[in-house]
């Protein structure tokens, strides 16, 4: 079995209800091929976060299966799954919990048993990939918001994940930080699933998009086509910003 034919992420018939009875997912099917960048679009309350928390086994116990690079998400291989799925949460202050940037980036690989010079090298490489090497010894709360978000990306890149899952990566970023993060994400050679409301950002970065609405995948196709479908967008409470024309500029690479 050649690994390149195994999709990075394969979700089959995933359904989930919270313990209080609220059902968030009603049978989600989603396949993300290796190296793809896919935007997961959906209004608030569509079940996006619930889906994300299933990808690394934080939430389990519903119907259906999640498979990451051929490995099913199950209790027995949770440690391996969490190395393969790198989730960047929305608030970098939640993600960066160690006293310095260097220690934060080192946390994941150190928890997996890496030590000494190999650990140093991995941390250095991950910080270099997001252009934050010279901030290694700073405490996270002394960085700007955009810098913190980049470090948050480094903390999961250092694990060499199979798939990078970003929760609202552009939220709270000023235009320059937004562009810098886009450049970084484009430069990475990794599968990306980007959860967002930011439709122009999705179009800029992801050739393919899926719409999650009311717990099911309502649409799946090239991002430009989905965004150009007025009726679909309206139906799922996804509105383009004023003056933005998705047909004018195709997604890059």
């Amino acid at each position: 079995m050649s690994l390149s034919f195994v999709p990075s992420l394969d979700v089959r018939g995933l359904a989930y209800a919270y313990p209080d009875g609220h059902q968030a997912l009603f049978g989600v099917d989603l396949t993300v091929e290796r190296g793809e960048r896919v935007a997961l679009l959906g209004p608030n309350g569509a079940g996006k976060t619930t889906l994300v928390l299933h990808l690394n086994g934080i939430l389990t116990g519903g119907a259906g299966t999640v498979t990451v690079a051929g490995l099913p998400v199950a209790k027995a291989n949770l440690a391996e799954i969490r190395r393969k799925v790198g989730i960047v949460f929305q608030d970098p202050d939640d993600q960066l919990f160690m006293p310095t940037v260097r220690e934060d980036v080192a946390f994941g690989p150190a928890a997996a048993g890496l030590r000494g010079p190999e650990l140093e090298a991995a941390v250095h490489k991950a910080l270099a990939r997001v252009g934050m090497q010279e901030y290694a010894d700073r405490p996270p709360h002394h960085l700007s918001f955009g810098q913190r978000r980049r470090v948050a990306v480094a903390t999961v890149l250092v694990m060499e994940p199979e798939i990078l899952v970003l929760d609202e990566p552009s939220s709270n970023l000023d235009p320059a930080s937004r562009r810098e993060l886009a450049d970084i994400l484009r430069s990475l050679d990794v599968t990306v699933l980007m959860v967002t409301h930011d439709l122009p950002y999705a179009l800029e970065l992801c050739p393919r998009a899926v719409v999650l609405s009311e717990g099911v995948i309502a649409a799946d196709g090239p991002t430009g086509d989905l965004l150009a479908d007025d009726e679909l967008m309206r139906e799922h409470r996804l509105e383009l910003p004023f003056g933005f024309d998705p047909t004018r500029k195709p997604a890059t690479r």
Partner: protein
Amino acid sequence: MGAGHTHKLYRHGHSPVHRMPPHCKLVAVLGFVVVVVSTPREAVWAFAAYAALLGAVAAVARVSPWFVLRRLVIEVPFVAFAFLMPFVVPGEQTRLLGVEVSVPGLWGAWNVLAKGTLGVTASVLLAATTELRALLLGLQRLKLPPLLVQIASFMIRYGDVITDEMRRMSVARRSRGFEARGVRHWGVLAKSAGALFIRSYERGERVHLAMVSRGYTGSMPVLDEVTASRAQWCSAAALPVTALLILLLGWTP
């Protein structure tokens, strides 16, 4: 954010005291304080000698006396208590500056004042020459229970985040025309404190989620081991050992 690049107690420097490993300094300060506390209060000259010792440490560390004096303000509540003692403690009375005061009370006040001031000064010098981060590493090295070190480390990481949140809530209150004046407004302040607690609690849950996602299983990986050479231990021991000698001399006249 308000916070500078280091804690306000810390004075950046490259003196021998700054360079000393943090766990040596912690042990030295603890030893010194134990010696000071066990000195009989009548040995006035011994306290003068201890003060001279601390003065020498401050000089080597190049911490200005003004800085130490300003940081001593934290001691004020204890000083107020000490000043009460000559008036409330019963016993033999004497006249001091035309006021009736009790002799045991005077000795008690002197005892609290001298020992307290020496202890606080030693702690201020420790904090001024050791970064918070290094103190944590020192505590870890001294085999303090890892859970306590983790809690302290999260306090340092999130102290500023929570203070910031508190400040934003206060700005929001005042923007809606609320100024806390007097007892009648305590209810509002109490509710704000409650809201802040719930927010911090929820943040705690999100941080835990982020930690678990990166492979946390209950213990923090030890990334930096601080080590000390025999010479460093010897120089750190200089302070408590000299103090102990002074104490022993005081006991064998």
